[in-house]
């Protein structure tokens, strides 16, 4: 069985050639991050599993259309994102995602690994994530879960680069405020 060590070594060409081992490695690599992303957006276990399944089926069908193999991860998340939008559309929540954050895009600050959360802050962190507006939550999850670049996040969500910068900035600002407040309380 193929083992996925680094995102750069994804067996995409082998999967395109129809090798089941390659597909298994790719699905195994992305199943949990995809599920986390989808679940934190739709907040429904069965709907999230359905979206992950549909995403994998679409990936298996349309992989020959992928031009750059190294973009497999962002391509997969963009399929899942589209399916989330379809789900929101059914529930009339699509506008929540398309509404832009007002104000000029500030400079992008730190990497997700630089933000460390203490064990006692985890519940609060999860609560805050779920309270964020859909648009901010989406970009922040992509930033946290897969450490996608701003350009990749813009491609996945179909948004402008400036909009993505702005959304991540405001989402992280709120998160930092929470962490500081919790630290004061302790």
């Amino acid at each position, binding site marked *: 069985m193929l083992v996925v060590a680094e995102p750069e070594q994804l067996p995409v060409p082998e999967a395109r050639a129809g090798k089941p081992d390659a597909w298994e490695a790719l*699905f195994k690599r992305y*199943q949990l991050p995809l599920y*986390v992303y989808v679940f934190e957006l739709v907040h429904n276990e069965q709907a999230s599993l359905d979206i*992950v399944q549909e995403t*994998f089926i679409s990936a*298996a*069908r349309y992989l020959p259309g992928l031009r750059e193999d190294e973009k497999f991860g962002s391509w997969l998340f963009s399929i899942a994102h589209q399916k989330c939008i379809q789900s929101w559309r059914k529930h009339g929540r699509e506008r929540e995602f398309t509404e832009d954050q007002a104000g000029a895009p500030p400079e992008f600050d730190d990497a997700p690994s630089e933000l460390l*959360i203490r064990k006692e802050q985890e519940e609060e962190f999860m609560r805050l994530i779920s309270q964020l507006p859909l648009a901010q939550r989406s970009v922040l999850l992509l930033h946290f879960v897969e450490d996608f670049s701003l350009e990749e996040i813009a491609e996945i969500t179909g948004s402008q680069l400036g909009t993505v910068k702005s959304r991540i900035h405001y989402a992280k600002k709120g998160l930092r405020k929470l962490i500081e407040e919790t630290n004061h309380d302790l």
Partner: protein
Amino acid sequence: MKTPREILLDRHRKAEARLDAIRERILATELPVKADSRSLPLDHSFSLAVAGMKLWRELILPCRRIWCGLAAVWLVIAVMNVTSKDSPKIANRRTSPPNSEILMATREQRLLRQELLGSSIIPAAPPGVVPPRSERRERVLFA
């Protein structure tokens, strides 16, 4: 201390068993179908259609006005080409050598015109040469 990624993934690890089941099901059902469809000629036509769409999107659509102009120019050239092919036929028809029947008819018409205009001068046939039947008759009439 944990990174946000670690917290998020740990929160949902309990879903892994169901995700594994989904993965196994897709590997068992979707991939053989995909392998079968790859061998069909339909897949080839699909890739041709994709290539056509790509060509349309990347080559034609960005400069569609230029392509429309070129198409119009080509249309005009084609029309001109077709009409210029017709004209030599007409010219050939006009310049084709007249046959003997037409010559005879022309000659008769000329004589008739002279007759109607009242011209009594009819060139006499040189002696010893038998004039045509029509001229002989005219001579009898004029006499």
